[in-house]
């Protein structure tokens, strides 16, 4: 699965005798032009968007309110794995607040009981990660902040000492 993109004819879900396999676009044709990744669609979607390689529409109806929220939240401040940095900006470029708040997460730092097991079972972050967004095998893309020995939940733009913890790899 790790290499490239299977052709529609051989992907196991399209009927190879139907007309669509001729008419539809092959994934390789579109996806090979975007910033590469090592998992999922093999596209680093956040970067493809940021670099302007793609420009997906944010609404199709006039008057829809589009909101982007720029705030990082640190999760799992107590555990043994590196801390999880949840970035709102990258998420809200793609998603609406209502996709997460409040049915998946209360909009209050530290107010949610999150667990890796629930995530692996397709709940919480796992609603999207492991289904459509980059898969759960990419541990350190979420567990991206080595423990700096502080317990703030919302990351200030600059941490004390002037260092910004690294983003995901």
């Amino acid at each position: 699965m790790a290499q490239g993109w299977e052709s529609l004819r051989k992907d196991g879900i399209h009927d190879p005798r139907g007309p669509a396999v001729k008419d539809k676009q092959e994934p390789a044709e579109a996806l090979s032009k975007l910033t590469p990744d090592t998992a999922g669609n093999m596209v680093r979607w956040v970067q493809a968007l940021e670099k302007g390689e793609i420009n997906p529409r944010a609404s199709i109806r006039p008057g829809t309110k589009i909101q982007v929220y720029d705030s990082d939240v640190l999760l799992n401040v107590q555990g043994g794995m590196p801390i999880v940095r949840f970035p709102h900006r990258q998420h809200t470029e793609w998603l609406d607040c209502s996709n997460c708040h409040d049915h998946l997460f209360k909009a209050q730092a530290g107010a949610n009981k999150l667990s890796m097991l629930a995530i692996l079972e397709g709940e919480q972050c796992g609603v999207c990660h492991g289904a459509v967004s980059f898969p759960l095998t990419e541990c350190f893309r979420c567990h991206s902040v080595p423990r700096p020995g502080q317990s703030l939940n919302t990351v200030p733009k600059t941490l004390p000492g002037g260092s910004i913890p690294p983003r995901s790899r």
Partner: protein
Amino acid sequence: MMPWRAGILLLLAWLAVLPLPAAAEYADVVLNRRAEAQGVRPVVFQHWFHRIRFRCKVCHAELGFKMRVGANDITMADIIDGRFCGACHNGDIAWAPDKCDMCHSGKRGLPTGIVGGHETGGPGRW
């Protein structure tokens, strides 16, 4: 609180129950609640193709598609009336619903589900 080695074990246990990797593209969706029973091929919806053109919020907020495979009760009548896929496949934003075979392109016998995701692979929703 769990040491991270336990996490790796958890992952291995999880991977062990994954079926052989499917060749279909990550996040491809098969919709077959009624299609095949009504004599047409199952529908294949591809996230990668659509997310190049639309952000998630268009479908999953503006148009109200629930984020769970099989949770949206989509009928052909809905689509022709401009709901679900028909909000775009209306001859305006995208081609009209008369191109049956473009959507009804799946192999017969496939159940509704998402490829490469927990719906088919993980322990969450057997």
